[in-house]
């Protein structure tokens, strides 16, 4: 009952931005494969376009995560979180309910992407050896959206001083650490951190690499 109420409220205030990002996400494969709905398959240009469009998926996933996570807490910030804090549920449970409702909303663009990629996959005639991966691309997009959403949700839900502290620490790490590491003759800690985060099994590895709808 509480979950449904929270989900409804979040849907109510996020529905227009969510609709916009959902349409944008679904448009990525459709626009990339546009000429191939009407006539013969120009395979190489199609693959080039799909590869170029691939860079848009992680960006779109971050935007989806940001729209949902930041939007979830916006009405509470308007009321200085008094209403949320006066609810008769433990704070962790309330935040968890919010997070779960946001997860449902995050999956809406991923579902739209699945439908769009399936449409492209059944429309384009592929030569032997090439396969379409609508499920993999959509699943990867869903996971990337969830990672982005979770990160931004945590920041939006946290105390502003904690967020400021984390951001300040990261900025210092990025700006100061390379110089210090060079003087000390050590490995740059910022580079190490980025490598840990963006290489498997780092949490942001899902954003890196190629996102191909058609592949061997």
């Amino acid at each position, binding site marked *: *009952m*509480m979950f*449904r*109420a*929270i989900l*409804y*409220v979040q849907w*109510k*205030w996020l529905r227009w931005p969510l609709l916009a990002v959902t349409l944008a996400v679904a448009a990525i494969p459709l626009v990339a494969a546009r000429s191939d709905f009407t006539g013969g398959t120009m395979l190489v240009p199609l693959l080039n376009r799909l590869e170029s469009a691939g860079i848009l998926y992680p960006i779109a996933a971050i935007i989806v995560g940001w729209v949902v996570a930041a939007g979830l807490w916006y*009405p509470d910030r*308007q*009321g*200085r979180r*008094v*209403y949320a*804090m*006066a*609810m*008769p*549920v*433990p*704070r962790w449970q309330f935040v968890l309910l919010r997070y779960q409702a946001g997860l449902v909303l995050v999956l809406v663009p991923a579902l739209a992407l699945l439908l769009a990629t399936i449409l492209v996959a059944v429309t384009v005639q592929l030569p032997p050896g090439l396969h379409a991966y609508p499920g993999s691309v959509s699943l990867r997009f869903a996971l990337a959206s969830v990672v982005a959403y979770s990160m931004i949700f945590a920041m939006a839900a946290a105390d502003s001083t904690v967020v400021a502290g984390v951001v300040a620490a990261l900025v210092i790490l990025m700006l100061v650490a390379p110089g210090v590491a060079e003087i000390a003759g050590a490995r740059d800690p910022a580079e190490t951190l980025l490598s840990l985060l963006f290489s498997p099994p780092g949490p942001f590895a899902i954003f890196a690499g190629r996102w191909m709808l058609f592949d061997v």
Partner: protein
Amino acid sequence: MDAAITVRDLAYRVGKGFEIRDLSLTVPRGAVYGFLGPNGAGKTTTIRLLLGLLRAQAGQVTVLGHAVPREVARALAGTGYVPERPHLYQGLTVAESIAYHRAFYPRWDQRWADELFRRFALAADRSLARLSKGEMGKLMILQALGQCPELLVLDEPTDGLDPVVRREVLTALLDFVAERNATVFISSHLVHELERICDWVGVMDHGRVVAELPMQSFKNGIKRLRVQKAPARLGDTPFVLLAREPDGPLAETWVVRGWQAPMTQWFEGVGATLRDVIDLDLEEGFVEMLRTSRQPAGEVA
């Protein structure tokens, strides 16, 4: 005494400008407790501390038998809260806001909520962003009463409302208290309003409680006395002398608390003459009490 709210030695400080110190109060179950104080006295901060919206630096708070902040969710389950400023989600309609609120309170009384909805003449499909101040006040009261709380905490609930809406809100509140025997903790600087509805009163000023007593004692016990030939130095008095001012040759006006008729004899004992005993209304008593509490210790008597 069974208490709905107990606060002991509460301390809270934010920055250098404001602090609550050694704050203690007791709200008996079933009481309508008026929490009086001028603007900036710390009433809203105290309420937020009671409800776990702020963390105290020291002291103990118990609400409906639950320690706050440790068991704040249980305390809030039985507490209806109407804050000073509207806190509900502006993007919802009235009906959606009520439905959302209802989902969190298993004891929600739909019959009572429907009755208030009709009485307040609210429009179900009106967006909260378009509600007038009076309509928003009614909606907040409706939601707080609909959840059937054992305790209502109202922070200046009628501030800024027109007299008609104010009366509607207070009538609904009193009906609820009469029917459910709920406890009400209501803060206000509108003294006359509290005088009509409260049976206990606590007075706060500059972050501390300066008095806490039954309303009847507060109203009856504060008097203005006209005294002649009063001695310059007073020993022990059977009442509390709040203020003392010259009022012509050999005459003085005193404001006292805890007055009872047999105390007239005390004046004969010290060689003074009591000319007149004048009743003060709550507002005058409140003002005198604040004036006294702000004087340096020992200045009065």
